[in-house]
């Protein structure tokens, strides 16, 4: 039932259908699967939301998740969380579920594909200036790239790119390498040890989702707050 062979680095290599440049591979299929679970699950739970003191356990579960994300965002941004919640929350929930589902046999985490992590990192790369411009205006935002002097402009740009690359590679490397380790361990010691490694994989998946979304939030917050600080000066 293995989708990927041991020599396959990325699920991108598992191609189901291809026509010209349009390729439907395992990465896309499992992404849609995770998306479907999230969307259908959200719809099922939120179609009958209770505003009373008594409410369902699923609603409670979602409220805990959303509430925790809001709290984290509020702590980092030092302001209202609702503006950043859809982006940061979706990043965390998507990556988290994509990683945690790796315990299901036959499933391949889309985050073990550099294409997916790069897409997410680029989304962050685009979101940071968008939030900054929305907050302060384009002029004020781009002024930051020339502070303290114009000499720092290339370093700012390099920083932006490098951290985006780091985001992408960090998530991809962790998840992919873990899957490979599991596959190798299954071949070497089929009993018990892979179970422990799977449990560790859950922890790593959760931590990586947390790191990715928290870093994204930190980048956004640092951009907006840095502009605010200079504006105050």
């Amino acid at each position, binding site marked *: 039932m293995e989708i990927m062979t041991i020599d396959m*680095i*990325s699920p*991108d290599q598992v191609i189901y259908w291809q026509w010209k*440049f*349009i*390729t439907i*591979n395992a*990465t*896309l299929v499992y*992404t*849609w699967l995770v*998306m479907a679970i*999230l*969307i259908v699950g*959200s*719809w099922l739970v*939120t179609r009958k*939301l*209770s*505003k*009373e*003191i008594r*409410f369902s356990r699923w*609603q409670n579960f*979602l*409220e805990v998740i*959303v*509430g925790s994300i*809001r709290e984290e965002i509020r702590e980092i941004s030092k302001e209202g969380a*609702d503006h950043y*919640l*859809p*982006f940061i*929350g*979706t990043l965390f*929930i*998507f990556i988290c579920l994509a990683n945690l589902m790796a315990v299901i046999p036959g499933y391949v985490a*889309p985050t073990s*594909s*550099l*294409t*997916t992590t*790069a*897409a*997410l990192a*680029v*989304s962050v790369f685009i979101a940071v200036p968008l939030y900054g411009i929305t907050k302060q205006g384009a002029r004020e935002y781009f002024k930051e790239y020339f502070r303290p002097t114009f000499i720092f402009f290339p370093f700012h740009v390099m920083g932006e790119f490098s951290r985006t690359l780091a985001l992408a590679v960090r998530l991809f490397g962790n998840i992919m390498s873990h899957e490979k380790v599991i596959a190798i361990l299954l071949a070497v010691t089929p009993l018990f040890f892979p179970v422990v490694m799977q449990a560790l994989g859950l922890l790593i998946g959760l931590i990586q989702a947390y790191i990715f979304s928290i870093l994204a939030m930190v980048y956004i917050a640092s951009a907006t707050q840095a502009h605010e600080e200079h504006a105050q000066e």
Partner: protein
Amino acid sequence: MHIDWFVFFAQIVNFLILVFLLKWLLYGRIIKAMDEREAKIASTYEEAIAMRQHAHDSGELYDKRLLELQEKTDEMMHKAASDAETHRRELMSKAREEVDQIRQRWIEAVAREKTSFLNHLKQRAGKEVYAAASRILKDLADADMEKSIIKIFTQRIEALDNQESAAIREAIRTSESGVFVQSAFEIPENLRPEINRIIRSYGASEKAIQYETMPEIVSGIELRTDGYKLAWSLNDYLETLEDSFSHAIQEGMRERA
């Protein structure tokens, strides 16, 4: 390791779609529900605080009223006790007065009975003494008792001192109704001139002297005019006897009490 650019952009689009769908299906609804619940809990909490305050106020009011009621009850109890004490004293006083009145009436009744009894005894004793004395005098001296009485009476009139003589003369002189010689027995006609002579010696006329028989005198004779009375009778002795009887009766009552 390569990047499939179609998949790369597709993933970006997928992610954006997921962001919008989750924003619509998850965050918006969940946050709205949470906010509304928070508002509801806050309003319920405020309501609870208000109710608690109201309960606290009601409790204080109740305690205050209870205290007032207790004070009022104490006051009423005190007043009732005071009234009861006053009423008890009044009743006791009234009862004492009634007892005193009953006792006084009883004492008066006893006194009346005693007086009546003594009067009766006095009359009876006088009669008996008179009868006995008369019989004794008759038996011993063969003398008439009545004559003896008259004799003693006349001797007493003659033996009056100056002050009494002046008083009787003045009484006879100013008297308009005359001089009455009253006795328990009919004074014999043959003895009357002697009596008349003595009375005239004090200034009375013969016509003014009148004789009357009064059984209540018991035994004796009296000279009576307006504002003056001179008497000798067994009453004097009987009064001594009466005092002795009265003393004996009081002694007897004390012993019974």
